């Protein structure tokens, strides 16, 4: 070790300390800055490759001794060696290599490109060489390669390709899609997509990693993200999913031009998916709402902000005085910032005076928050995504991260490909399932039974962690006897999964040195969702996989700020910071802080709001950024409920299905137009920075709320992210040490102590609730199957596609729509044959609620008896058929199990 520490090498005869096995390039960078020597094939998030050779240096064993030329990017530093970076010999070598490259490079492109965006040109100019200096006679070249312009985003013009392999390596090492390769050999090597079929026909998922990697723009995208001449960029956070990717947004004349991913982002290390990188054109789409609207005689009319505020304030005041505050409710948005969510719940609680505040977490991860609070005391991920680097086993339950959390999904896939054990519990053969060591392909709705089987075998095979159970948990003995009483054959029959396979998977999870679990909506959106979460917690407890690197229970939070909206108190039973609003001391805290009397009763959850509206108890509802008509289950009922309100306010970017039903529509602003913070799925609070001014006629959502607050008599200063955060940090205990400045570029993971130190892993020494709590649950067939299973013998489970986001209001207004154009029904070949349905034919799907026509896609992804579909397009309205069965505890709807019947459609789309 001593030896290691004192390892020294010389750069141009000056001694420096060497770190471990670092490469010469790494070593040089540490002492000479970012570009100590030129490079072409090297890139920040790729492994050393050694193809361009312009990074070469001379290395000698003694000062000014005999040297050897070595490529610095992949050669480790030798102790006591003398590295010479700019000798005559080396400069000449670099220049001669670039001269060779220029023999096959379009001179006109060299001429016109900007050296700041074309790395080849930069390197060439630095070496003082241009195409005019090429001494070779014209010869074989690739200047006539055709361009590829067929894809909605990706572009290639390979005449400018220098065969550095960066694109290929990015697609492999970063995204893991392996769409790109060289074809041919030697000088004839050509980058191709798929089977030499261009981007559009290949399996490209448009992540843009290749475009970002390319040094010359030979592979680029419609926005020329890498090569456009914008120099002003603003760093912000993606609006789409809970991964929370950092984005560098390039702006020109107050217009977003393109987006790239910063390499130094701890969350995404230079990567994003196509939504983050390319799907931003919705923000200034012609269909953006640009004026407040009031519906009169069934027609929307554009009105001024003053008029709309007066209208709202007047109505709300009347309803409140006539029906009491509880006749008013709000649904806040996980797309909005923490500050805005905080404001919305504050408005509902402190200004209106009711706890009728809820958010979309209700329809996704409410069971996670509740289940994990019950087991551990905190309803958030125990660990961080970086723990993937330390884990030996990944258990993925009811989640399809390669589509829904693409950057995390890519990391999981990368780890699986490299050999980390992967267990997938999912009714569908997802992408990850194909890479899994164990795929437990259960019948939808049997999660509880399957997890009980895993727990049974862990106990039965005696692979539990007794020390951990003894020291850090409670309730184990009871739990154990209940589990052991189960009949595995019966469970195997219920789940449809071979019990030996379950045993092997359970043992693999238990025996792994460090095992991490991940779960998604396939866990929560069930009638037993909360119980399932508690059983996942049981698995972590029984195997001691809590409280260190590479372990834990890690919910994959759906929307970008769904974690944050709950943290901020967008829940009817807990205020900002998860404080229980029924407790008197909590009420006192809030009352002191907000300087008003606080409501004491638990408010309505979203489904209860609809019921209350139908019953006439709820009169006014204000929804921010949620298309409940399209995305909530049982559309017919939702519509009816909304129509029975006296005042329905929708704050939106677009005229969604929900907005159409509103009395008042408020044009909000997109993430690109506002500042604040988002909290990602690993509790990381990150700065959102406005990149452009709000589109004319629209307002930052937080400001809209504040305007109404003030008009209703509550003094709240104008919206300012930094000041809002200051207010929040005074009331949310785990935000105590958070300030705008401290968040810096990579944010902080809560809890953040007063001194600003944050927390990557929680429950280290003890659980938030003291001991981890074991809980046992019997599996119960869902009401949906019990009631409708006979008449509707197939099961549909809903899911999403990578290319679209939720109701699609944003992604359908971007180029993504050309990639995936419609919702489809994935159906097993056997079921299709039984019903005489062919690929691409319309299928009529009926449930106890209604029916939809949808196009069939025959797929191995689903087993016979099970079908799957997405819900991104209003044309289909898949939620017409979904049920309003809910999780018994958290009231999250059961999207994942819908009893249906199918037949070939004879309806209007029959020949579509």
């Amino acid at each position: 070790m001593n030896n290691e520490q004192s390892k020294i090498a010389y750069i141009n005869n000056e001694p420096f300390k060497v770190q471990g096995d670092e490469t010469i390039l790494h070593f040089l960078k540490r002492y000479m800055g970012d570009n100590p020597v030129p490079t072409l094939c090297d890139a920040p998030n790729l492994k050393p490759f050694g193809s361009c050779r312009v990074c070469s240096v001379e290395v000698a064993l003694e000062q000014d001794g005999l040297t050897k030329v070595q490529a610095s990017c992949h050669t480790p530093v030798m102790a006591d060696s003398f590295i010479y970076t700019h000798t005559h010999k080396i400069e000449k070598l670099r220049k001669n290599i670039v001269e060779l490259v220029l023999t096959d490079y379009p001179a006109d492109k060299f001429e016109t490109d900007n050296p700041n965006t074309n790395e080849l040109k930069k390197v060439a100019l630095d070496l003082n060489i241009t195409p005019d200096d090429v001494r070779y006679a014209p010869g074989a070249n690739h200047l006539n390669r055709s361009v590829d312009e067929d894809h909605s985003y990706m572009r290639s013009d390979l005449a400018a390709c220098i065969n550095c392999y960066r694109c290929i390596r990015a697609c492999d090492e970063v995204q893991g899609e392996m769409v790109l390769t060289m074809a041919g050999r030697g000088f004839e090597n050509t980058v191709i997509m798929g089977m030499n079929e261009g981007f559009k026909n290949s399996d490209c998922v448009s992540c843009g990693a290749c475009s970002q990697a390319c040094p010359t723009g030979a592979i680029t995208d419609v926005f020329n993200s890498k090569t456009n001449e914008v120099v002003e960029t603003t760093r912000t956070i993606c609006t789409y999913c809970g991964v929370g990717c950092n984005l560098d947004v390039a702006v020109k004349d107050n217009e977003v031009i393109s987006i790239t991913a910063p390499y130094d982002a701890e969350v995404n290390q230079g990567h994003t998916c196509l939504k983050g990188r390319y799907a931003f054109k919705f923000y200034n789409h012609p269909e953006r709402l640009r004026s407040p609207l009031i519906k009169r005689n069934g027609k929307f009319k554009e009105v001024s902000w003053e008029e709309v505020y007066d209208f709202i304030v007047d109505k709300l005041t009347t309803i409140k005085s006539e029906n009491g505050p509880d006749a008013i409710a709000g649904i806040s948005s996980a797309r909005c910032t923490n500050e805005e969510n905080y404001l919305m719940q504050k408005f509902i609680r402190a200004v209106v005076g009711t706890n009728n505040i809820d958010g979309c977490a209700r329809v996704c991860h409410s069971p996670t928050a509740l289940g994990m609070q019950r087991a551990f005391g905190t309803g958030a991920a125990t660990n961080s995504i970086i723990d993937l680097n330390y884990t030996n086993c990944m258990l993925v339950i009811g989640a399809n991260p390669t589509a829904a959390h693409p950057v995390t999904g890519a990391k999981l896939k990368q780890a699986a490909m490299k050999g980390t054990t992967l267990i997938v519990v999912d009714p569908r053969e997802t992408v990850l399932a194909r890479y899994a060591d164990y795929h437990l392909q259960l019948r939808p709705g049997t999660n509880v039974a399957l997890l009980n089987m895993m727990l049974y075998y862990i106990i039965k095979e005696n692979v539990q962690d007794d020390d951990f159970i003894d020291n850090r948990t409670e309730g184990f003995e009871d739990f154990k006897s209940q589990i052991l009483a189960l009949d595995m054959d019966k469970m195997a029959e219920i789940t449809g999964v071979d019990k030996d396979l379950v045993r092997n998977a359970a043992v693999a999870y238990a025996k792994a040195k460090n095992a991490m679990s991940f779960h998604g909506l396939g866990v929560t959106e069930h009638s037993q969702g909360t119980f399932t979460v508690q059983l996942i917690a049981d698995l972590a407890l029984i195997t001691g996989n809590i409280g260190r690197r590479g372990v834990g229970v890690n919910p994959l939070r759906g929307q970008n700020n769904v974690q944050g909206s709950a943290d901020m108190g967008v829940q009817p039973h807990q205020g900002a910071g998860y404080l229980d609003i029924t407790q008197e001391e909590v009420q006192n805290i809030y009352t002191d802080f907000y300087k008003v009397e606080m409501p004491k009763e638990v408010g309505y959850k979203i489904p209860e709001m609809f019921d209350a509206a139908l019953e006439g108890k709820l009169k006014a509802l204000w929804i921010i950024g949620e298309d409940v008509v399209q995305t909530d289950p049982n559309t017919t009922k939702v519509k009816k409920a909304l129509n029975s309100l006296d005042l329905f306010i929708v704050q939106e970017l677009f005229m969604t299905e929900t907005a159409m039903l509103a009395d008042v529509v408020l044009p909000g602003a997109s993430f690109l137009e506002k500042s604040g913070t988002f909290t990602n799925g690993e509790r990381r609070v990150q700065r959102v920075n406005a990149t452009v001014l709000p589109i004319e006629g629209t307002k930052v959502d937080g400001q809209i709320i504040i305007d109404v607050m003030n008009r209703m008599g509550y003094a709240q200063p104008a919206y300012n992210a930094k000041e809002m955060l200051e207010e929040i940090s005074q009331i949310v205990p785990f935000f105590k040490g958070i300030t705008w400045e401290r968040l810096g570029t990579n944010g902080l993971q809560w809890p953040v102590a007063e001194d600003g130190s944050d927390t990557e892993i929680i429950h280290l020494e003890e659980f938030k609730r003291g001991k981890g709590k074991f809980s046992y649950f019997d599996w119960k067939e869902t009401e949906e199957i019990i009631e409708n299973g006979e008449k509707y013998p197939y099961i549909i489970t809903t899911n999403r596609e990578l290319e679209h986001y939720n109701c699609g209001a944003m992604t359908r207004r971007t180029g993504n729509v050309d990639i995936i154009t419609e919702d489809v029904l994935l159906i097993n070949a056997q079921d299709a044959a039984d019903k005489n349905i062919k690929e691409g034919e319309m299928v009529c799907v009926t449930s106890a609620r209604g029916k939809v026509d949808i196009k069939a896609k025959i797929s191995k992804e689903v087993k016979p008896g099970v079908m799957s579909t997405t819900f991104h397009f209003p044309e289909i309205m898949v939620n017409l058929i979904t049920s309003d069965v809910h999780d018994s505890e958290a009231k999250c709807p059961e999207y994942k199990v819908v009893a249906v019947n199918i037949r070939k459609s004879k309806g209007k789309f029959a020949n579509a």
Partner: protein
Amino acid sequence: MSENLRKLSGRKGLDNNLFEQLVNSSKAEGTPTDEKLKDLAWEYLMGNANTYGAGSFYDFLKKENKGKKAYVCNGSACLVADTQEKVTETLAKNFSKDEIGEMCCMGRCHENSAFNVRGRNYSGMAINNLKKILSSEVSGLEKYNVAANVSNPVLTGTPLNAESFKALFVKADAMGVKNILNEIDNANVRGRGGAGFSMGFKWESCRITESDQKFIVCNADEGDPGAYSDRYLLEVQPYSVLFGIMMAGLVVGADRGVVYLRAEYSEAINITQLAIDELTRIGMNGTNIGGTGFDFTFKIIEGAGAYVCGEETALLSSIEGQRPEVRVRPPYPTQEGLFGKPTIVNNVETLATVPWILENGGEAYANFGTQKSTGTKLVCLDSFFNKPGMYEIEMGTPLSTIVEEFGGGFKSEVKALHIGGPLGGIIPTHKISDLELDFESFQKQGFLLGHASVVSIPKEFSMVKYIEHLFEFTAVESCGKCFPCSIGSVRGKEMFANAQQGEPINQELLDDLLETMEIGSLCALGGGLPLGVKNALQYFKEEIIK
């Protein structure tokens, strides 16, 4: 090299080997169908691009190979012998132009006129009997001399057979790993694949690397035109080679041995496979070898036509079904080799010394040759010699002895010898007397021993044309990964092609090109080519720079 692809391929490993599947699926039509490439990509969890891209690399897998029925050798020895035009013309009477392809060296350099039809190699007078060949099933007979200048030859003595293999295994097993390694160390064998790296050192570093799995790979991709010594060993002494592989496995704790054998050597593939089958029959291949509890299974992986696959890291990628592009080192194969596991890659001839060493002792081996270059070396002489053939020569023997006594002198006037394959040195005849057959002597004089194949360049053959051929060989065989080699070889070729059209060579530019390739290339293909060209520039300048 992709770590992902390597690991994904490793999931199925050698038993259901991706590359083998690619090769097999090309047998019917000369190239795998697109459907097959997609199926394989799906099965191995890779992208379609990966199987497609891998297939497109190899002469005998790429789409252009579809429908090829006959191949003409285009290697250096046949080129300078000026025999191939006639071969092509004769073949063209029986095959359409599209059905005739090219192959780079079939190891028939001792009689030339080499061609391949229906997977068999022919040479010498065979082309005169093409009709008969096409109607029969016999392999082309060939004749070359074999002799040694030591009394107890290491490599060319009485061949081992299955039974003597077994007996020797029993003996070795009794010696134990430590003693085996000791003998190998004492013998001080240096790798015969070209680089001359110590075999014992390589084994030891693989042995001490901890892993649940290790591999031994025998590099039988002998691609140097002019060389056929590995072919000789595989066809005549296959048990010696296999024994060497098994001993490496015993020493380092590997249970799989791969012979990566070039497709151009179909006879060698058949004979080696027969030897493996015979070993299987007597319980010397598979589990519990000879009842000792040692498991070891051989497997031949057939190449698909790519010289660079002889480079060890490209070779490993090839077996993995990846594009065989050279990898950066470290990690070395002994640390992270095949499927990411510690792997020994040794040349055929290197491994074939092992039985003799264990029988006679490492010291006896080291008594042959010089201090630093011990043992004997196989040397291949081409058809310009009066006695073409493959000779086992004690290291340190004067080159002139080989030329005069073994080769019997030249048939016609020769101006230079190209020794060590395309990446070797070009030795003008007057320098022959200054050289001895060992690594040091060659290096000191500015040449390279390499694999010690000898191609004679006749007096009347233009040096400019020969250099063009060398650049072209490099351009065609370059893996294309590093800039100096992939672009430089093409520019070099063009320079020398233009020179034949009267365009004078710019010597400063040529010097720059050679230096760029030599010090800039990632591997010894681009890095090695300049040596011969520089020799030619030194000794035949007036022919080149006019």
